[in-house]
């Protein structure tokens, strides 16, 4: 790891993680795994919210929860696939909004049928992500500063081209997709996220490409020496991140029935917290090389559930952001404690 990478990772996984991997499977490890912990937390908080406010378990509430979670999960995945390489992508929000606006423009201004417009939006997202990747690989600079700059550029170009106007002429069929209900309770958007989760699991577990990406993230030099074109892997991950961010943006368009430039806040910054919360809660190492698709999925779901529950309990919509910040802090502290506990047990 170069000093540049350490800049963001700020932690050296080597000793702890090696010991952990050597430990292999054990019941303690399973119980202390992120995924198990997240499931426990989800059940626990669902029980608390349901007992405080029975409306939490109403059909509409569960439907809305799944629909919102679908977008947050996609945002989490978008960040996860670059964290895997040991980098990050601050431009997820800007890319997501830019792609959503592109999709909206294709539908409204050019009158394309919605599947083509969605494909166009995804292509814009992938292209912007690939541009990030190429800039990072060519310059040898850290992804933090490159994506900080492109976040400003992408968002600026989007605002410049759209004159900050929304596209409200979204095709009825596409808007209907985001509002559809399967069995009265399930949003098709959540199925999209589940499908993407399965595809990403296959990518990272079963394909050579996925293993090469993980190898690049774990140790770029070593990967390079064993014949992996790590620069291509990094560019690929950023393109994938852009496409996933675009998917999240297009899902939001489908849900609200309009492409709105401000849907991710100034420069798309509002997506940063959900983007990191999912992967970090899910146990994806910030220094790269390890990934948990299921963890990110559950993490993003937990965050959405907590937000919904807190709003339902009327703690005041304005305080929700504070709670999410505290949750992120709590999650990283627990993760640190969990890891040092596992290491100590192994050494004892």
């Amino acid at each position: 790891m170069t000093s540049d990478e350490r800049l963001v990772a700020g932690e050296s996984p080597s000793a702890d993680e090696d010991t952990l991997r050597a430990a292999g499977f054990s019941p303690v490890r399973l119980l202390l795994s992120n995924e198990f912990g997240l499931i426990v937390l989800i059940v626990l908080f669902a029980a608390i919210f349901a007992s405080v406010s029975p409306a939490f378990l109403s059909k509409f509430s569960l439907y809305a929860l799944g629909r919102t979670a679908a977008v947050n999960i996609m945002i989490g995945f978008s960040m996860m696939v670059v964290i895997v390489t040991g980098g990050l992508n601050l431009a997820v929000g800007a890319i997501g909004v830019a792609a959503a606006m592109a999709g909206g423009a294709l539908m409204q201004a050019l009158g394309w049928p919605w599947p083509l417009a969605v494909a166009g939006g995804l292509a814009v997202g992938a292209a912007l992500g690939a541009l990030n990747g190429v800039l990072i690989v060519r310059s040898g600079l850290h992804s933090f500063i490159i994506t900080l700059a492109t976040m400003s550029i992408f968002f600026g170009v989007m605002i410049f081209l759209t004159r900050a106007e929304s596209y409200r002429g979204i095709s009825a069929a596409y808007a209907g997709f985001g509002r559809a209900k399967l069995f009265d309770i399930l949003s098709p958007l959540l199925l999209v996220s589940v499908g993407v989760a399965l595809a990403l699991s296959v990518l990272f577990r079963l394909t050579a490409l996925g293993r090469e990406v993980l190898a690049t993230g774990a140790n770029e030099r070593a990967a390079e020496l064993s014949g992996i074109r790590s620069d291509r892997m990094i560019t690929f991950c950023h393109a994938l991140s852009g496409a996933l961010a675009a998917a999240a943006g297009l899902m939001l368009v489908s849900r609200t029935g309009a492409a709105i430039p401000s849907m991710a806040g100034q420069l798309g910054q509002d997506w940063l917290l959900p983007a990191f919360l999912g992967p970090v809660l899910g146990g994806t190492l910030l220094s790269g090389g390890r990934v948990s698709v299921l963890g990110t999925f559950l993490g993003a779901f937990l965050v959405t559930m907590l937000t919904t529950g807190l709003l339902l309990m009327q703690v005041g919509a304005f305080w929700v952001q504070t709670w999410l910040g505290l949750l992120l802090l709590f999650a990283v502290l627990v993760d640190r404690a969990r890891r040092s506990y596992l290491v100590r047990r192994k050494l004892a």
Partner: protein
Amino acid sequence: MNGARAGGLREGLRENDWFGPLLVTLAAVAIVTALNPAFLSPFNVQILLLAISVNAMVAFSQMIIIAIGQMNLSVGAIGGLAAIAFAGMMEVWGVPWPLAAVLALGIGLLAGLANGLLVATTGISAFIITLATLSIFKGVNLGITEAQPFYEIPAAVKSLGNDTFLGPLPWLVLPCAAVVLGLWYTLDRLSIGRAILAVGGNAHAAELSGISVGRVTVAAHALSGLLAALAGIMLVGRLQLGQPTIGDDWLILSFAAPVIGGAVLSGGRVSVGGTFFGVVLVAIFTQVLVLFSIDPFLVQIVLGVLILWAVGINRYREVRSRRRAGTVVT
């Protein structure tokens, strides 16, 4: 011998972090003035100086964290929290403004201390810690204000935030000048400043030579919080309004100016002068977009391109100096 010294001077200036941005600034002023003499009108200069004074605080707040090789995403959130605390204390509790300003600075200091202590004691990356505290501080801001501004700002504060005392010189220039001098003195002359740069250069080596990395980290974050709060307070005076959205758009600027000033993001190398001229350059570019009625939406694009351009140049200098060092050794 004379030639050698001149060569050394030229070399020194070229390697200096503030010299490049200064040259570009002078060139930009000359070109813009030639194209539109209104650029140097007293009113325009006053507007420019107001923007520079506040933005320099924002940039320095980030610069001090870049110096230790970390980053502070919560600069804007701390500034916003201090701003609404300042305005809120005056409006709701009727606190006299100097006391409110001191208390708001204290809030910024505490917020920075919290960041520093969390980073130093847990060893978790400053990126994640400050992303979390960004959300916490912003949430507290919104929870207190419910997204409504405080309007009752005393006349004295409004006047200090906008009026001038010497020709086009606004009052806000004074705190800015004090901070520039203070920071330069701290980083260049005081042991804590040298310790900050040493930790940024190589934390392990610094630790081995007797510097407490933890204490330096906490001190740098506390100073960063203080400067962010100062920026927020100054902006309340300038806007004549306690806006909850203060600080929302500081992130890009806070990195752009230090990077234009030659700061290396992995730490150990920052320049107070370079960062200051980085702020000046950004202010001039922004002003030009307004002055020539070019689309103000382009500001974001210009800022992004400036960052890429600056990190590109820094990278080139780094590679070149490494290559040159290599030839000396062989």
